[in-house]
């Protein structure tokens, strides 16, 4: 049996056991707890506290400050199986409560639980995981007064992406990335005709010479154009962020992120200065308002 089959086999075995040992509510349904609930939630219905709010059904049998699951609680057992298989995180996804009748102060409820469904492995936004659904049944004496289908996703968290995408370095661009590491913003210069050019390339677009050198820029310029990036998400970035096309004093234009500014405040012509941002093995040029 592979790992997935083992999980499904454990689920079948737990589901076949049916309802677990009932857990009796600490207190009978009572007016003070109803009043605490309606007060906290701001529910002013005149129906309460003569009857309990139906949505309180789960409250009566909560485990309190020191909850203890019964040994045969199927959710606890299924969580152990999935933990052991590496699905260590959990998030609740659905709650479906059905009330058969209103309950009144004085009734003492008890709850049982059975494993209803285990589905997986599923690829989700949070990571690969299994949807586990349990079926809770509340009784007053022998009478079923309420039920709940409760679903959780038990998943392997995706590793957090913190590194940004590194630039591609070629023989034509290596001088530029060597420069940023030493705090120099380098602009390619044609050694034949003296024209500056960016981005770097092997051939001068003006005279076609193949012999580039570089000059060091002042690092000052103005926003020539810009975009505010909202979507999609970019590894290592929090959206929204601003990407500016900056016209340097020397006359070439260079792209980079514009930092520390509300996207609403960016405008064409904004004076900016270069700043250097370490990113993995690289140092990226970015811009700040001056």
């Amino acid at each position, binding site marked *: 049996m592979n790992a997935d089959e083992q999980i499904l086999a454990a689920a079948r075995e737990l589901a076949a056991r049916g309802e677990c040992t009932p857990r009796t509510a600490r207190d009978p349904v009572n007016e003070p707890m109803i009043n605490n*609930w309606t007060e906290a*939630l701001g529910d002013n*219905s005149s129906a309460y506290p003569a009857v309990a709010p139906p*949505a309180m059904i*789960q409250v009566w049998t909560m485990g309190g*400050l020191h909850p203890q699951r019964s040994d045969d609680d199927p959710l606890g057992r299924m969580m152990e199986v999935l933990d052991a298989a590496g699905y260590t995180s959990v998030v609740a996804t659905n*709650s479906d409560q059905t*009330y058969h009748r209103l309950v009144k102060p004085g009734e003492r409820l008890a709850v049982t639980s059975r494993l209803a469904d285990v589905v997986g492995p599923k690829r989700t936004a949070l990571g690969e995981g299994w949807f586990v659904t349990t079926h809770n049944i509340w009784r007053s004496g022998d009478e079923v007064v309420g039920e709940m289908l409760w679903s959780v996703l038990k998943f392997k968290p995706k590793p957090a992406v913190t590194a940004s995408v590194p630039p591609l370095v070629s023989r034509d661009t290596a001088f530029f990335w060597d420069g940023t590491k030493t705090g120099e913003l380098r602009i390619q210069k044609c050694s034949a005709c003296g024209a500056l050019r960016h981005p770097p390339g092997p051939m001068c677009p003006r005279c076609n010479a193949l012999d580039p050198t570089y000059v060091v820029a002042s690092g000052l310029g103005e926003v020539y154009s810009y975009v505010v990036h909202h979507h999609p998400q970019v590894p290592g970035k929090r959206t929204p962020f601003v990407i500016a096309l900056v016209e340097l004093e020397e006359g070439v234009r260079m792209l980079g992120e514009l930092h520390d500014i509300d996207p609403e405040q960016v405008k064409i012509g904004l004076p900016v200065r270069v700043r250097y941002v370490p990113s993995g093995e690289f140092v990226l040029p970015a811009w700040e308002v001056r």
Partner: protein
Amino acid sequence: MTDLPELTIDVTPTFVISTALATRDFQDVHHDRDKAVQRGSKDIFLNILTTTGLVQRFVTDWAGPDAFVRNVSIKLGVPCYAGETLTFSGSVTAQDGAEATVRVVGRNSLGDHVTGTVKVVLP
């Protein structure tokens, strides 16, 4: 299609904590900001029993004290952190005799915190 009156909840830290205690949910993420942040949340956040209760309240505020709520079925979305404003809106999508089905959405600044349906028997 009947639209229900909107319900807006100012989700203060006091609201998050008092509702967590009133629903007997003592998980630290509902009352201890430091622990919530350690666990990767921005702040303490509303617990599910409260979300269920607010969905019910949104419908009974409209349906009145003599209505009988038969079913509350919700799908959870983005968390509802302290400091958020949570706004419920909804409409009747089906009517079967006295029983109405109400579609409910609770939104905050991050998106849909809760979506679902409530089945309620009207008086």
